């Protein structure tokens, strides 16, 4: 029986800001806990009843809700060398009312002083806006570059009585254009649904970035959690057909740099498919020189138990299966070269990665 996927990963800790203090999040044995919140369940109940939420518990909840989310595989790291530069400071800017990455809910707002001032300016009769135009409308105008000799067809669009934000576009020409911003109240009316959707998208983005900002160790563990959910025995194993395209891409994107490290092959020349049988899978190399192509069939679980632990290429072998695990010592099946039978290796985690402790016999035909 194979060990649980998390058995090859040591515990990890990260510090987060929570209520103005620095708290710790701890991952161990496949679970994330907020160590400074001993009564986590109680806090969650209180939060559900409208009580104050803590950042730590938000993170734990987000981790749980993303534990089978294939978006993690699309965004997360492809290898240990694939550094995600997102930081907690970046994410802090994304919070409500935050800075440049943030997304403010476009709730109706009263007219600002500039709009009020402009609307108060007297206009000549001919330039007087129609009564229907919202007070505070501001028109912008200007010229865009282009081919003067070409027929211009820029369309100016002015406020249509608060019908919504309008845009002017010229595809092929030069011309005068105008566009208008009506009062915020009118601009946003009628687009609340789109705003709500955008806000939800922004919230999900912030949540994703917050998890990734926990650091490389957590990125790998979250990726492993997702992969394990879709692997045999995982909570989403029954839905694997629907997730196959994303899983194939996840596998290919992570096997490719490993294969490059293993064989020196162009990562673009790696094809991977999901292996659905009970053995470890297949590896086949074709072509020569720069035309070499590696075709692989590996189970989704490989991502959780092998790749996430940094075991993919160890001692010149592509590791294809974990047989036993009691971190820091692990027994694995490794393929020395495509087409060769896998061999059993006992490896040990050290400060500079995994090292072979002992090499064993042929592991071909091993069942998972």
């Amino acid at each position, binding site marked *: 029986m194979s060990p649980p996927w998390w058995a090859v990963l040591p515990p990890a800790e990260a510090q987060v800001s929570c209520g103005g203090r620095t708290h710790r999040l701890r991952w161990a044995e496949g679970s994330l806990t907020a160590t400074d919140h001993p009564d986590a369940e109680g806090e969650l109940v209180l939060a559900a009843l409208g009580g104050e939420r803590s950042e730590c518990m938000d993170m734990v909840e987000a981790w749980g809700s993303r534990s089978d989310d294939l978006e993690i595989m699309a965004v997360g790291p492809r290898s240990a060398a694939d550094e995600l530069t997102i930081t907690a400071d970046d994410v802090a800017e994304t919070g409500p009312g935050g800075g440049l990455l943030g997304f403010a809910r476009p709730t109706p707002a009263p007219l600002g002083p500039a709009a009020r001032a402009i609307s108060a300016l007297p206009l000549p009769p001919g330039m007087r806006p129609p009564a229907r135009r919202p007070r505070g409308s501001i028109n912008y105008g200007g010229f865009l570059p282009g081919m003067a000799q070409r027929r*211009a067809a820029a369309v100016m669009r002015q406020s249509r009585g608060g019908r919504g934000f309008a845009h002017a576009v010229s595809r092929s020409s030069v011309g005068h254009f105008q566009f208008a911003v009506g009062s915020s109240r009118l601009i946003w009316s009628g687009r609340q649904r789109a705003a709500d959707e955008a806000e939800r998208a922004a919230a999900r983005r912030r949540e994703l970035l917050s998890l990734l900002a926990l650091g490389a160790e957590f990125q790998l563990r979250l990726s492993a959690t997702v992969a394990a959910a879709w692997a045999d025995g995982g909570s989403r194993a029954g839905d694997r057909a629907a997730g196959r395209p994303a899983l194939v891409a996840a596998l290919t994107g992570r096997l490719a740099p490993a294969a490059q490290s293993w064989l020196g092959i162009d990562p673009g020349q790696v094809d991977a498919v999901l292996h659905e049988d009970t053995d470890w899978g297949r590896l086949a190399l074709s072509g020569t020189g720069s035309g070499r192509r590696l075709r692989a069939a590996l189970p989704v679980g490989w991502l959780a138990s092998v790749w996430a632990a940094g075991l993919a290429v160890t001692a010149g072998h592509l590791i294809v299966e974990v047989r036993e695990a009691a971190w820091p010592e692990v027994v694995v099946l490794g393929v020395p070269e495509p087409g060769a039978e896998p061999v059993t290796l006992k490896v040990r985690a050290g400060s500079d990665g995994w090292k072979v402790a002992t090499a064993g016999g042929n592991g071909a035909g091993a069942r998972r």
Partner: protein
Amino acid sequence: MTPGAGRDPARADRERSGPPPEDGRAETYLRLCAEAELRRALTLPRYEPPALPGLPAPLRLAAGLARPAASVVAGAARPALPLAERTARALRPLADRAAAAVQPVTGEAARRLQPLAWQAADRLQMLRCAAPQALREWRWRVEGTIATVGLRRSGPGPERRDPSAEEGVHRLRTLARALNLAGAIDRGTADSILNGLETALAVRSRVDPHQLAMREFRAMRHPRPARAPAGPYIAAPVGVAVQPEPDSGLAELRLFTLVLAPDQAVLSAAGRLAGQHGRSGHPDPWPVFGSAQPSTTDDRGNGYELHEASSSSDSDGDWAGFLGIFPIPPPGIGWLELTFSPGSPAIRVDLTGLGGEGGAASGPVPADRPAERLIDAAAVSLLHDAVAHGDEDLPWHDLSGVADIVAALDAVGALAPARGAVGRLVTLARRLGVEVPAAVSAAAEPADLPADWTSVLQNRGRRDGPRGGTPAAVVLPELDGARFVLAGLRSDPAGAALNVLAWGWDHGSPFSSGDPNGPWSWSARDDKGRWHIATEGGGGFSDDHAELQLQFVPPLHPEATSLEVTLAGPTGQVTATVALDWDGRGSA
């Protein structure tokens, strides 16, 4: 225009679509493309917003002018609207100057930069976007676009470089849209794949992280349109010349068509600017009515406001616009009477007997195969360039995007229905001397061009179109949940422009660069047998409707008396016949 018409219908049905989205091949293909793009982008330098001191002189000047105001903006109080207003005003000169600064690069460069300038305008509206950051970003984008121009330019030119990560995402988005239009992948899945790639690049500092917020901002700004509002759509021809007020800024004004829709009432119009053309001649807002107070009444004694809803003008002095009528006249009224100034004659618009879709329109009929139409649309775009811009622009026409699409369709098993279209594209490109990428030429043998394309090519150099305008008032039958109303046609020796109002029409982002592969296409044939192809010359876009100005080339036949206009949508096409009664004089 329906190349390939007349095939075996049963076979056509079988081939109508490629593999269904459930097949998963297209999704897998697109996801693997995204993986490859991420790998490629990781070899590029990280995104670093350049510091202001490195700006080219014209931009530095613009930045210098805008910075004090921008600083004010950045430090302004937080309420969203005032900040947005100040930011927009502070940056407007910068956008103009930055655009002007790059104008001398080449005509083509300027053309490529135009969407960029619109993108800048888009950004001006973004709430909470701090001005100094926007200045740096603007410079980065201008540099990137100049480099792109250099990349695409054939022959000697600036040193070639790898496309930026942002350009790679754009290329893949185009591909995703094509697969969606071909029916191989649903739009939500395609969007999520590209959004995932963009996020992956942002968290690795390969694209500007603001792109993520902009994506959501755009989704809010450009939600997918709802189905066109239900209810009657009426187009009433007006066709009357009005003497503009002396202080109106217009020398001529002609009313084309009154359109009554469930959610609005508008009057299309066109004219000529008075005096010197150019920016200095445009007060803001545009005083189309001068000092006069226009009024509108109906046969029941109701009064309405008449105001300018939108307008455009060009460097030749032509003006076009839509006048809004408020409130919307109720159903069943017999006429509307428009008076532009006290003492001027009233213009009565008869509304009796207009039951919505005119008898001049027909359809819809089922559309051809989507993958085939996708490739044909690319060929028509090339054809349009050949006619509208002449040979000197053709070497710029880049078919590499089409090559991506052909390769993708092939990979997901959806190319078979489109091989004929690929063959037509190969023939057309070779005839025009445009380089054909190997992926395109290898996909199909050259095929004969349809007769309508041949007609367009034969007439590409003509400058014999009649000069004038006609109401062209036609309501098209509903097509794919969208409604279109033709509302005025203008013709001159070089071509013709058709005003169209649209509801429930999925245009995509108006700030993206031209998308020749969209699901909608327009064509026309006059009664003298001359074919015409159309592109969007411009348009006004809002959430619920659009005002399009379609540019038809080559010009109408000078003796044509009617024009058959065809709109092809995702699943069908409709046709309308427009009488060419130029300015009430009858056809030329």
